[in-house]
């Protein structure tokens, strides 16, 4: 099996995921208590508007026809109309995507780097005091609700010691000057990125440690040591390469689980991304917006899983040849 047929197979799988999620959203809205027309309109919609929605989505027609209308709308990028923003759902979401990518990207980058370093450090001397400490710290970070850590950081570093802003993307008045704006955004990014990073960190540290310990027990390591490869090269050139592969896979699988951390972190720091938009949509009971965010998040997770699969296929020949 070549790289391309492998990737084609994974792409087909991602498409199935997206279609299933879309179907799930359709079914859930119709299973929910209450009139689907009112759910599709959003809370606070006028009677006329609900009537219009009923006609537009064909809610008085059979379910199969409703499903056809629903999928046709989705394919055209029509996710409905947000009543609280008086704009199409897709536009409201899209203008918030860059901020979320900035925050999540920064946090994941530092979490991967620090996590791998901690994992290596722990695996060098397994079951030592240092290993125990690293394990303890990552377990604790993993158990702290992100929103709590965020609040503590705000209280300590924004309110008590006025080092960082309490939230937002930038201060009013810096937009005109680009270098100033970038520095200001970076300043606002520190605390939310730190919060989110600590949540992701534990996963990477533990995966790297487990992967390294497993790799170090393999025969090729014994062979490398026997032929006189230095301990440093055994660890970094032989074991680490193989240990990082599961880190990539699990990191891919966990993207979906990590979204929750992003939502709560954005909420605490009023970071104007998709996560805080979801929180607003929930509090306004803006059902079309909540549904839209659910679909867009699921699609982006499916796409990033696909990218991880592609990277994996290129890095590890065993995947595409199916030997493993």
């Amino acid at each position, binding site marked *: 099996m070549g790289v391309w047929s492998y990737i084609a197979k994974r792409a087909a799988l991602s498409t199935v995921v997206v279609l299933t999620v879309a179907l799930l959203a359709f079914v859930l809205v119709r299973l929910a208590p209450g009139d689907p027309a009112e759910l599709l309109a959003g809370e606070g919609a006028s009677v006329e508007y609900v009537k219009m929605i009923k006609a537009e989505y064909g809610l008085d027609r059979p379910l199969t026809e409703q499903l056809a209308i629903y999928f046709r709308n989705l394919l055209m990028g029509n996710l409905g109309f947000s009543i609280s923003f008086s704009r199409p759902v897709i536009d409201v979401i899209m203008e918030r995507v860059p901020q979320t990518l900035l925050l999540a990207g920064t946090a994941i980058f530092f979490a991967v780097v620090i996590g791998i370093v901690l994992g290596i450090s722990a695996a060098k001397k397994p079951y030592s005091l240092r290993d125990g400490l690293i394990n303890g710290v990552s377990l604790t970070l993993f*158990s702290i609700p992100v929103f709590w850590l965020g609040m503590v950081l705000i209280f300590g570093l924004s309110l008590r010691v006025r080092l960082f802003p309490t939230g937002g993307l930038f201060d009013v008045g810096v937009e005109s000057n680009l270098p100033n704006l970038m520095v200001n955004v970076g300043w606002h990014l520190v605390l939310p990125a730190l919060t989110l990073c600590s949540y992701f960190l534990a996963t990477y540290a533990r995966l790297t440690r487990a992967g390294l310990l497993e790799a170090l027990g393999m025969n090729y390591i014994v062979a490398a040591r026997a032929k006189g490869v230095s301990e440093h090269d055994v660890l970094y050139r032989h074991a680490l390469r193989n240990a990082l592969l599961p880190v990539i896979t699990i990191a891919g699988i966990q993207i979906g*689980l990590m979204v929750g951390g992003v939502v709560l972190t954005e909420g605490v720091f009023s970071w104007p991304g998709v996560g805080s938009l*979801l929180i607003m949509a929930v509090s306004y009971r803006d059902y079309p917006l909540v549904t839209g965010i659910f679909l867009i998040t699921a699609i982006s997770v499916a796409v990033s899983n696909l990218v991880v699969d592609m990277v994996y296929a290129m890095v590890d020949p065993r995947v595409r040849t199916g030997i493993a």
Partner: protein
Amino acid sequence: MARLSLVGAAVLRDKQVVLVLLLLLPIVAAALFADLIAPYKPLLTGVGPALAPPSTKYPMGTDQAGGDIYSQVIHGSRVALLVGVGSTLLALVIAILIGLPAGYHGGMIDEILMRATDLILSIPSFVLIIFIVVLFGSRINVIVFVIGAVSWPTLARITRAQVLSLKEREFVLAVKALGAGSSNIMFFELLSNVWPSIVPAVTLQIGAAVLTECGLSFLGLGDPNMSSWGRTLWMASRSIYAGAWWGVILPGLATIMTILAFNAMGDALGRSMNPRTIKK
């Protein structure tokens, strides 16, 4: 039985497990005797002045509505344990019903069940949970059900992997030779041997479910009729600007202690229930 007591002894010899049990003891006690321990009704407002710092009368201070935070934390342990344990039990049942046949039968059945598992795993679960709770209402049984219904894939994968390696063993061949049917083999012979590898993942899942419930009620999506730690922390997130640190720190420590206890339990059990490390 001999094996079970061997495992039990190995587990209790692990200091981390004992430490974790000591951490969980006050939480379980608080949940069981909440009405006796808590001095005030947890959802009652105006039992004291607004934003009073901790004192002998209000051990963890009060929130901006004059509610007693200590009483909220004590009662909050109920929601935490109910959601944590309840949703995990549901997830466990689904995981076993999916993982056992997938691993045992293999072939098409395995392919279909595992593709379904991968599918659920790739849906962003927290957003799905929010979506469902918004549509179906913030009631405690909805929350327990939804968290359980999206949390089974990891457990199902572990069950399947374990069954795959177990089904080739001699004892399975022996009961097959005795004429046991496949459901008999799955639910009696295999299931009892799958436990050691599922139990650590189950305790980790309880921790994750408690965390999820806290997140939900922090967003105002918790059951409005029950006191939850996330809800207390949500109230506190508004009052830190007035300098009320107690609403954040003290309930937060209770939350972290509980989640950490379950995570550390999973961590320790993963080590001590691993048959390769059990020492005579």
